[in-house]
């Protein structure tokens, strides 16, 4: 799987929580994920949805996705057509949720990425190429469980295909 797009960073780098990704104001009201996506990152960066482009990457520091267990958070990112999130580390529930719905999360040294940099992600090779800065950044290999979930197209497809867990 290969993805290409621009890096999108925020005024806050660490501890970007699920309330920022999608506010509780919306998640209880709106069931349509496409509509939810239009509010992604709104409290932290109003107008983010209008500015981002299909295929972009969200890039952050430590502990991305901390806070609630709302699956609407990775869903809003995915439906905003962000290819993947890159961060130094991720919060645990968010991490599972993202892979369950087929949104790749990449752990790497994001200090080497500036807002607006053009990036290429090669999941099979395990490398992010920063095209703007002309350098490769190694990514932490995905755990085998996450790879099998991604390959099956998420947890729903996995359970359907194997009639239960086959990890």
């Amino acid at each position: 799987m290969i993805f290409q797009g621009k890096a999108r960073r925020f005024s806050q780098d660490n501890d970007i929580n699920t309330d920022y990704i999608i506010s509780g104001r919306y998640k209880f009201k709106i069931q349509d994920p496409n509509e939810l996506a239009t509010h992604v990152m709104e409290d932290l960066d109003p107008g983010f949805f209008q500015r981002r482009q299909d295929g972009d990457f969200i890039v952050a520091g430590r502990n991305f996705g901390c806070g609630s267990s709302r699956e609407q958070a990775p869903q809003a990112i995915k439906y905003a057509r962000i290819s993947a999130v890159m961060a130094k580390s991720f919060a645990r529930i968010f991490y599972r949720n993202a892979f369950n719905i087929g949104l790749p999360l990449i752990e790497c040294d994001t200090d080497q990425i500036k807002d607006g940099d053009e990036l290429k992600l090669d999941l099979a090779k395990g490398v992010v190429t920063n095209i703007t800065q002309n350098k490769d950044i190694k990514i932490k290999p995905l755990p085998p469980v996450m790879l099998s979930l991604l390959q099956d197209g998420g947890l729903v497809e996995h359970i359907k295909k194997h009639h239960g867990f086959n990890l």
Partner: protein
Amino acid sequence: MGQTIIEKIFSKHAGKNVAANEIVIAEIDFCLGQDGTSGIVIDSFKKMNATRVFDSKKMAVIIDHSSPSPNSGVSAIHKKIRDFSLQQKLQFFDVGQGVCHQLVPERGFVVPGDLVVGADSHTCTYGALNVAATGMGSTDVAACAATGRNWFKVPESIKFICNGKLPKGVYSKDLILFLIGQVGADGATYMSCEYTGPAINNLSVDARFTISNMAIEMGAKFGLMECDKKTLDWVKKHSRKKFLCQSADPDAKYFRTLIFDVSKLEPQVAKPHQVDNVCPVREVAGTEIAQGFIGTCTNGRVEDFGIAAKILKGKKIKKGVRLIVAPASNWILKETMKKGYIDTLLDAGATLVTPGCGPCVGTHNGVPSDNENVISTANRNFKGRMGNPNAFIYLASPATVAASVITGKITDPRKHLK
């Protein structure tokens, strides 16, 4: 080699001896969802081609986050999950029954040694009863509902040894805020916290829930305590299920062990907009507040209202300041009424709202206006959490909230406890 509490519980549920960092498929004892997450649980469950929940007695659905419904969008979600729950004959709690994390232990669904998964991040609350309970997303809970199992990575453990005795006016909320301030919002990511020591043993079960509840605020997966006589008495009073307590072996291996003496701890607050932005109340005392809130799965229990009522007895809330109270369950509401706490709070000028999450998550019942400061007993103070990104939330104990609404400023409760 010796095992931690969580290694023991996973060994029991995976049917083999396991250690930290192993990936296991484990049988779960109970699962749950609330109204903010169950809609997607149901969608995913159906997309998995599942038709029946693995065991209808082992799944609860609770309408607590926006309850009763504030608008038609929420009503549609409520109807969907109500219909599903009734059709599947689940343990279903409709509007007004209370917050999921109060109801699930209160109704005896979970007992020591259990493995529990909830579509809500504060599911870790039941750790106070020696239950390995953790929050997951809706699709993971749907997988549990469909199969009765899920995959887990057995976490490493951090041990918090709390020595000494909490001083007067300092409560379990102050202790957990202090611990979060010490390790940070990602200080225990993916870990199982074990809280132990005389200061923990001294706490009531109500007070212990507050500590386990906030394990997630340092990124933890579990927040466990061992059983003692208080645990056993509590569990036997609430449940008829059989159980087996799990304790750590003396030679169990920990990622980290942290030792604290709590005997000089002061009341603490978490300042906006991060739960680990913690300082003693003293440092922000005098900050004006517009609203107080006592409730939630962190501090909405009988003991919490007792503490607040003691401080507010015969007093009035400062003019221009609101105090909103939301008992964490219908049972708690009735108990606090019997004990006269609700009378005292209402006489002081408080507003009582439906048992449930109340304004905690910003859906209704007390959204602050721009630039207002709120002091709350909840577990999160993220920007926008209570429904307005331009408000500022301070987290504190029920005592600190009660003292602060009297003066209209953040106030050290110890002055009001003489």
